[in-house]
Structures are given as structure tokens and as C-alpha cells.
């Protein structure tokens, strides 16, 4: 809690600007050599009324960026006690010293003037935003009291813990906390983005994860859906890969194709953009497979050695997905489909990559399975330049503990008959909460997410939040969800805390970053990991599962396993030395990727890539006491038919009929949108809308033809109305928008979160997206809503 600001400012010599300019040219260099900067150039511009707070010795600390889930290594520049900049950590292979713009906003997150400065409790009406400060002891006692009361009443399962994209062991800790306490209801944001891709891998290859890719050796990439330069995870790796694929090798210039319904920045930068009706990307992949198989270009050796069900798959594809049929479904011309197929087959090694948009329809699982199948047809799986399986570090096993048996099903139906392949269904939770279905939620903990803003049908979440009797928020700023909380227990920002961050799948080789605190906590905030461990120690019976006093102890316990494995980039004689090197480098990485370890890459029961997804039947049986066919039939999955278990095209279910809601709504992600991690960073709002030259708010893109038919001019205010609700927003005419579609970037329309977040204009498209799901994977159908659009005047 040290506050040295005053001390630092005093004693700063005043220089005139002219003296400063001279010093900046020469003095800094001299000062830099002796390792001390600041004292010579600290100045105070009377005119500018700005003083240089930073003064003192320059030091660098290794941290890991946590503005997005990717976990790039950062090298934090400190001058005295002040963090003045973050640079990339060259040791960290994920970003090799480079960063994206979001990371550059890190100091604006740490030094955000609107941060919550200590624990508070609600005094006014729920949602009114009236608080009074309390102590951490009081906060702890209240949380413990509430949890104890619930558990004693047999209602432990009515605690819902939203953990967002919680990094590294925060995520593990929250899971274990909930297990030990006795609730099945932990939900992350997986169902908002990648869960369909993960579920498809489970069926085809046997493991639940997104893919890693061998970008450095590939020659040809088709991105199906999304925008690989804007919404990818891990993003910086992708940005580097783009450049490497094109210019990183003297003899090869790879070709990159972006398929998607909107001309994104990726569409601008790809060699070719293929516009497609939203949600139809899987059909296109099947069309390519048709051409490849028909022309005998498929990889027979791979198919024979490592796959099962190819005959059934090829029969289906040859029968149903001719270029002409696929052109009808997708809007992509048949000639283009043939050409893409020949390019894809003729440019090995090649990659068919699943973009974000691919998981954003009700047919997401089959879309992703179609992409997987296309890769398998060409033998692009686990070969140089192909699709890889991510490996992870081996942490120490959790200590043995007696965990309570949890009898109740999850609230959101994940892993049950409603969504057999889902791990969580975040966007469907509000309906369950509002209807006490199948039981009420008595307590809600919100960590690292903002459900009142970031979920489809966000307005449903706001209603649900108003209903829950006890809400704890760990957010650093009072965002749209935190304003509903009973307790605000602000976490440190990432530069103030120790955290390990395992990057999401991407590199292939195992990797984990360790962030050391780069700044003392500015305020009376508390590491949520420490807080949860304290709460656990106060609750009877939980200490066995969570015996650590601090989060750092927990992380150190678990990392011992990495040291014990004896593998990877840090070789040390003792664990203390290992830990010290880890802190100095900020990252541990495992061995170079080994191709063709089939017993790890293909872990289905048959040990093969399963075109015919047998596990789907098995899982459906498991969740229903053997009546899997009924489960699948109830979900509309064509049980009993020959194609039931094959990758195929299903028409996406869309909310809103075509007659009343003629336009397809396409919410999308722009790179500078840091969601709940940095809503109040002004720098990011300045660069928010690159293609439209917009900032500080969002807009709705319409193809000029569509706009003219509706009588809508550029920059005019319009209503966008769906069955879910309506929003008012500025129209922008854009030739990169498909006729019949309306594209709105996510992130605009904040109503809370700090002075700059609140100043952002526009509207939140999540408010009007109906929270539909892929029935099997439980992933949110962001592209599953139709809207009508009309001028704002006179229609309010």
C-alpha cells in the first residue's frame, strides 16, 4: 500500500523546455549508460501543468499480458516505482518480443483513474451503484457467512461462479474451490467462442481443445469464418504467422484465403476473400472435400492408416455436396469451389483453419467437424505444416482430498441431455436463473467477465442479476455487471499480481508464462486467489483440498511438477533455482513439437480420426441411461439415419422470420476490443474502428445497395430491431458488407466501467442477439439472429 508519489515528485528539478530538448538529445544517452535515468530529465512544464512522476532507477520485470487470454510475455519497464511501458518479452516464444495494441494499453489499466480502490458493500437499491467502504476482514466474514449458511441449508449447489477467461491457476483454483464447496456451477466464456471447435475435436480426434497449427511450414491456409487478424487466439502468434507465411521463407510465399460473411481486416489482407452466407462455412469445406475425393486427390495413406468411417463420409459427400449444390447453400460460385479445392489439394502442406465465426451458429459443431474432415481427407493432421495438437505442462497432481459428492445437475444443462457435449452454456444461464430451472441461484461470484454486457441476450443477464440475492464481483472497475453486486472485492490489475498463464492452443509445444508483480498494489485491492484461499480456510472441510495460504504457494506447489519432469527450457539443480530462472525469463517452454505421436493425437476409442463420430452416440447414451437416440432426436440430430454421426451441413436455426426481420445480424470482434479486461483504456478507443476510421463507439455496416433500398444514408441514426430487442446506432455504408446483412462490432454502448468506457457511444449488439446455442456443443449462436432496420426519427 505504499504511496510514494509525493516523495517522488518533490525534488524534481525544473528545466525549461529548451534545456530539456538539449538533454533529451544527449543527456538521456549518458544517463542510460549508467543505468539511472529520470533524474537528469525530470522536469515540470508550467505551461503543460504536467509533472514527470517517474524518476529513479530503470528496472525491468517479466510479466505476462492478461489483457486478452493469449498470455504474451511482456517485459515491464519501471522507472523508480512507476510502470512506464510494457515491451514484448523476447524469451517468450508465443510473441518473441512483439505485442498487439491491447498489451500497449496495460499502463492505462494499471493507472486507470476510475479503478475501485478497496472493498465495498452495497447500501442503495441493487443496481443503483451506491456503496460504502468495508474492510477486507468484514468482506471475508460476509462471504464466509453467506457460503456457510447456504451449505448448511444443503444449498451449496446454488452458488454459481462465473470465471470468465480466468488465467492459469486462477481457473484451476476456482474449479477446485467449487468442487470442494459442493457446486457444479462454474462457467467460463468457452461457450462464447471456442466450445464447438473443441467439441468437434473430441468427436473426431478424442480430445477437447482447439487446434494448434504449424504456421511456419504451411503453404496454403483457408480460414473458415471469423477474422484471423482480429479475433484469433493467440492473436500475436497469428499476426506473426501471417507475415511469416508470406515473407518468412526465401523460396515459398504461402497463400492465405479468408472465408467469411464480412470483409474484415483479414479480408483486406488475405490473398483472397470469399464472401459466404453466415454459418455456411462447413458446407463449403464439404464442397472442397467432394471435389478432392472425386478428383482422387485425397491422401489415401493417411486415410488408411489413421482414420475410420471414410467410406461413409465420402459416400455422403459425393452424393450431397457437389460444387453446384454447395454453391446453392453458400452463395460461393461453383467454379470458385472447384478452384479452391484444387489449390488446397495442390499446395501441401495446407491448413483448413476454424475461425471464430465457425462456432457462431446453431450448426457450429458440424461446421467444425467438416473442417476437421477436410484436413483429414488431405492428411493435414499432425504433419509438418499442418494441424497439430497442443501439449501442456505437467503440473504436480492436486493433493488427495475428500470432495463432496454433487448430486445436482448443472443449471445450464451442460453435459446433460440438453447439451451433451457442452462444458458450460454461459448465455443460457439467465433463463435458468429467472425460472429457478431446475433450482434457484442464491449466490453468484463474478470473476473476469461482464455478463450484463458480454453475453448474447445481455438484457436477460441484467434481469437475472437483479434477482440473485447475493452477488460478489471481483472486477477492478465497476462495470455493467459489478453495479449489481452486493460486494465489490476488487482484484489487483495484472501488473500488480503474480499469475501463471498457460496460452490457449496455438504453438503445439507446451508452454507456460509466469507474471511477477511489476508494481506494488496501488490501492487496497486483493489478489482474488489469496482471497478465495482465505475463504476456503474459514469454511470447514475445504482446507484439505486447498491447503495453501496464498496463491503464490499454490502456484509454486503445482509448478514443482514442471521442474520434476526434467524437461524443457529451464534446467536447474534445485527447484529454488528453477523458480528463480522462471521469474527472470517469465516463461517455461517444453520440447520441440514431435510429429506423429498418434497415441496422443488420435485418442478416440478406435485410436483413429473418426469421420464417423461414434462417440456422439456413446455420449448421448451416457447422459440418458442408454437412450441416446432419443436424446439426439430431441436435439434434431437425425438419429437413426445413416448420416446421424457424420460431418455434414445442417441449416442453421435463426431467430426472427425472414419476412419481418429481413436482415441477417452479424456481430463481430475488432482487435482493439479488450472486453472486460480494459474497457476504460482511452488509447484503445482511439483505434477501435480502423476500417471505418471510427473511434469511441460502434456503428452498423450496411451494403450501399441494401441501405438505399431502405432509404438509409451514411451516418444516419437507425433502429436495429430483433425478436430480442432493439438498439439505436449509427449506420455506415460499406462495400465490404454483404447485401442483406448488417454488421455491428462488439464493444460499443458501455454504460459503466469508468469515465472513458461510459463515454463510448453506439450500442451493444449483444443486447439484441437471441441466445441460441448449438444443441450439442452449447456454443452461442452469435450469428443466429435476424433483424429489421429503420430510420430512428419518428420511430422511437
Amino acid at each position, binding site marked *: 500500500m505504499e504511496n510514494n508519489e509525493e516523495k517522488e515528485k518533490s525534488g524534481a528539478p525544473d528545466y525549461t*523546455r529548451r534545456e530539456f*530538448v538539449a538533454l*533529451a*538529445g544527449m543527456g*538521456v*544517452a*549518458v544517463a*542510460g*549508460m549508467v543505468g539511472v*535515468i529520470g533524474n537528469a530529465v*525530470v522536469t515540470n*512544464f508550467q*505551461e*503543460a501543468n*504536467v509533472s*514527470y*512522476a*517517474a524518476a529513479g532507477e530503470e528496472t525491468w520485470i517479466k510479466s505476462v499480458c492478461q489483457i486478452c487470454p493469449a498470455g504474451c510475455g511482456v517485459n515491464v519497464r519501471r*522507472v523508480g516505482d512507476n*510502470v*512506464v*511501458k510494457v515491451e*514484448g518479452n523476447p524469451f517468450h516464444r508465443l*510473441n518473441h518480443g*512483439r505485442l*498487439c*495494441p491491447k498489451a*500497449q494499453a496495460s499502463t*492505462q489499466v494499471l493507472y486507470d*483513474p476510475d479503478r475501485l480502490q478497496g472493498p465495498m458493500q452495497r447500501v442503495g437499491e441493487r443496481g443503483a451503484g451506491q456503496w460504502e467502504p468495508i474492510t477486507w476482514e468484514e468482506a471475508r466474514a460476509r462471504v464466509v457467512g453467506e457460503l456457510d449458511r447456504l451449505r448448511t441449508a444443503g444449498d451449496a449447489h446454488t452458488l454459481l461462479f462465473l470465471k470468465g477467461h480466468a488465467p492459469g491457476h486462477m481457473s484451476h483454483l476456482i474449479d477446485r474451490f467449487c468442487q470442494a464447496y459442493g457446486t457444479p456451477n462454474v462457467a467460463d466464456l468457452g461457450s462464447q467462442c471456442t466450445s464447438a471447435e473443441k467439441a468437434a475435436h473430441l468427436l473426431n480426434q478424442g480430445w477437447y481443445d482447439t487446434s494448434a497449427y504449424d504456421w511456419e511450414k504451411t503453404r496454403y491456409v483457408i480460414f473458415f469464418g471469423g477474422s484471423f*487478424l482480429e479475433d484469433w487466439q493467440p492473436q500475436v502468434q497469428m*499476426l*506473426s504467422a501471417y*507475415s511469416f507465411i*508470406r*515473407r518468412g521463407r526465401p523460396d515459398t*510465399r504461402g497463400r492465405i484465403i479468408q472465408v467469411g460473411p464480412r*470483409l474484415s*481486416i483479414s*479480408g*483486406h*489482407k488475405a490473398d483472397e476473400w470469399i464472401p459466404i452466407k453466415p454459418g455456411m462455412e462447413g458446407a463449403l469445406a464439404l464442397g472442397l472435400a467432394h471435389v478432392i475425393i472425386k478428383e482422387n486427390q485425397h491422401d489415401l495413406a493417411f486415410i488408411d492408416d489413421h482414420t475410420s468411417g471414410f467410406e461413409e463420409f465420402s459416400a455422403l459427400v459425393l452424393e450431397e455436396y457437389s460444387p453446384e449444390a454447395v454453391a446453392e447453400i453458400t452463395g460461393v460460385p461453383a467454379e470458385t469451389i472447384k478452384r479452391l479445392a484444387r489449390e488446397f489439394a495442390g499446395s501441401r502442406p495446407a491448413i483448413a483453419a476454424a475461425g471464430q465465426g465457425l462456432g457462431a451458429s446453431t450448426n457450429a459443431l458440424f461446421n467444425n467437424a467438416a473442417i476437421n474432415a477436410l484436413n483429414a481427407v488431405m492428411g493435414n493432421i499432425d504433419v509438418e505444416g499442418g494441424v497439430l495438437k497442443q501439449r501442456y505442462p505437467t503440473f504436480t497432481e492436486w493433493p488427495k482430498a475428500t470432495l463432496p459428492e454433487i448430486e445436482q445437475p448443472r443449471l445450464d444443462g451442460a453435459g446433460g441431455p440438453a447439451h451433451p457435449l457442452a462444458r458450460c452454456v454461459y448465455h443460457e444461464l439467465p433463463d435458468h436463473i429467472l425460472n429457478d430451472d431446475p433450482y434457484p441461484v442464491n449466490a453468484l461470484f463474478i470473476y473476469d467477465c461482464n455478463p450484463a454486457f458480454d453475453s448474447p441476450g445481455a438484457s436477460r443477464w441484467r434481469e437475472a442479476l437483479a434477482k440473485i440475492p447475493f452477488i460478489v464481483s471481483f472486477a477492478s472497475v465497476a462495470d455493467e455487471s459489478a453495479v449489481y453486486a452486493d460486494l465489490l472485492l476488487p482484484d489487483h490489475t495484472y501488473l500488480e499480481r503474480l499469475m501463471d498463464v498457460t496460452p490457449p492452443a496455438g504453438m503445439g509445444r507446451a508452454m507456460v508464462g509466469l507474471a511477477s508483480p511489476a508494481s506494488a498494489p496501488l490501492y487496497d485491492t486483493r489478489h482474488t486467489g489469496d482471497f478465495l484461499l482465505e475463504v476456503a480456510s474459514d469454511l470447514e472441510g475445504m482446507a484439505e483440498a486447498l491447503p495453501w495460504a496464498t496463491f503464490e504457494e499454490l502456484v509454486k506447489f503445482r509448478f514443482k511438477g514442471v521442474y520434476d519432469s526434467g524437461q524443457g527450457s529451464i534446467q536447474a539443480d534445485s527447484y529454488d533455482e528453477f523458480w528463480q530462472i522462471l521469474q527472470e525469463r517469465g516463461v517455461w517452454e517444453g520440447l520441440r513439437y514431435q510429429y506423429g505421436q498418434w497415441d496422443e493425437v488420435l485418442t478416440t476409442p478406435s485410436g483413429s480420426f473418426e469421420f464417423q463420430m461414434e462417440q456422439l452416440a456413446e455420449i448421448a447414451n451416457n447422459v440418458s441411461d442408454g437412450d441416446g437416440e432419443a436424446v439426439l432426436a430431441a436435439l434434431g440430430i437425425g438419429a437413426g439415419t445413416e448420416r446421424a454421426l457424420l460431418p455434414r451441413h445442417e441449416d442453421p436455426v435463426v431467430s426472427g422470420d425472414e419476412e419481418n426481420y429481413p436482415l441477417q445480424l452479424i456481430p463481430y470482434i475488432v482487435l482493439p476490443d479488450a472486453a472486460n479486461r480494459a474497457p476504460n483504456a482511452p*488509447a*484503445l478507443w*482511439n*483505434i477501435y474502428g*480502423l*476500417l471505418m*476510421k471510427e*473511434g*469511441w*463507439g460502434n456503428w452498423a455496416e450496411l*451494403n450501399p*445497395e441494401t441501405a438505399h433500398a431502405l432509404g438509409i444514408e451514411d451516418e444516419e441514426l437507425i433502429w436495429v430491431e430483433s425478436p430480442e430487442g432493439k438498439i439505436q446506432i449509427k449506420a455506415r455504408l460499406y*462495400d*465490404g458488407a*454483404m*447485401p442483406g446483412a448488417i454488421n455491428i462490432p462488439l464493444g460499443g454502448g458501455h454504460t459503466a466501467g469508468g469515465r472513458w468506457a461510459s*463515454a463510448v*457511444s453506439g450500442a451493444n449488439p449483444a443486447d439484441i442477439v437471441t441466445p441460441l446455442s448449438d444443441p450439442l456443443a452449447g456454443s452461442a449462436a452469435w450469428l443466429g439472429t435476424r433483424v429489421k432496420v429503420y430510420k430512428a426519427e419518428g420511430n422511437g
Partner: protein
Amino acid sequence: MISSSAEQGEENGRHRWGMVIDLDKCTGCQACTLACQMENNVPITGPEEFEQGRTIFFTEVFTDLEGEFPYVEGVVVPRPCLHCDNAPCVRVCPVGATFHNEHGAVVIDYDACIGCRFCTVACPYTARSFNYYTPEFPSPLDRALNPDVPVRPAGVAEKCTFCFHRVDKALARAAEEGRELTNSELTLLPACNQVCPASARYFGDLNDPNSTVSHLQRSPRAFYLLEDLGTESKVAFLRSE
């Protein structure tokens, strides 16, 4: 021309800094834009200033789109100050406040600048900004100020400096170690270059015919923005294919 300036450079120890941006690698991510702002203490402004075009960007990314759906072709171009040898901004400055420093970078003496804004109008690349407001860094954001770079007061023009404070510091450190900076070290010196995830930006000495930037500026893909204006910019772009 190159060789003669190279010889001259060797004689007086001067460099002629230049940059190359490969548009075939650039991803339009705008990391350069923000890394620059954070490095150079660009004042914090909000939506009103943005709306009026008064937000300050030393380096900025521009896009353009031609054609109609579905036959559209987009371009993305990052634009720092181009540090022209024949710089219109230098020519119009009535008080000599903007000038070429010893290594050829166009810089501003903020103390001499009278705020007439001739330069901001003269620059054909809109690379110069005017400080309309007293710079604000609401506490505690002022703690992130970089002590190596002055905050410019209201009423002066400002722009990309090729991060000369970083370049000079590195040169001095290398001199201390009795060695020259390598091409790969030089290329990372400006903050925009160091951050670039696509490694699309190069920086170095155009006086040295063997430097990476000299090589790349001779590439058949190289071109200069609005070259026909005769500004003789020191920032080249490599055409995308």
C-alpha cells in the same frame, strides 16, 4: 548519390535514418500506433477530441477500399512521419522551429514553435499534429509518463521523432561498449518497430549502402508515398503482391 552521402556520413559520423514498411507483412493491427503513443507521452483525449480530428497520432494506420461487393479490394497502410529530405513542413516553418537533426530526422524545437500550424497544413501526409489542448494525464496515469520524452505544451506542433531518444541512447551504449549497432539492433529501435508482431517495419542507416533499409529501398517492390511531389521521403513502402 547513395555512395556520396555514405562517404560523407562516414567522414562526420552521421547517420541518415530511414525506414521501410513491408505492406505484404503488415496486418493492420495498429500496435505501432499505440506503442508510439505510450512511448512518446501522447496526451490522453476523449471522444470529442477524436471527433474533431484532434487526437494525436504520430504513426497511424489508414485503409482504403475500392470496388463494389463482392469485387472489392482493400489496402492497409501504416504511416509514420516520412522524414522527407525535402520536407514541406521544414520549408514553411517561419521560425525555423522544425528542422533536420544531424541524422536527417525531421524534429521540432517545441520552445521555438509559435503554433502557426503552417507545417500541419503543408505536410501532404497529414503526419503532423497540433496540440490544441493542455495535455492531460489524469492521476495516476501521469505515473506512466516516459521520463525520456518531454510532454509538449498546448500550442505547439508535434510529430514522430523516429524515436531519437531511444536511438541516441542505444548509440551511446554501443559506443560505450566500443562497437557498432547491428542492423537487427537498429531495426528495433523505434518503438513502433519493436512492437510490430508482423516484423513488417525496418529502421536503419541509409548512409550505409549495405544496411537492411538500404537494401530494401532498392527493392523492386519499394515505393514512396506521393513520390511525385518530390518530398524525397526516407520512409519507403514495399508493395504487397
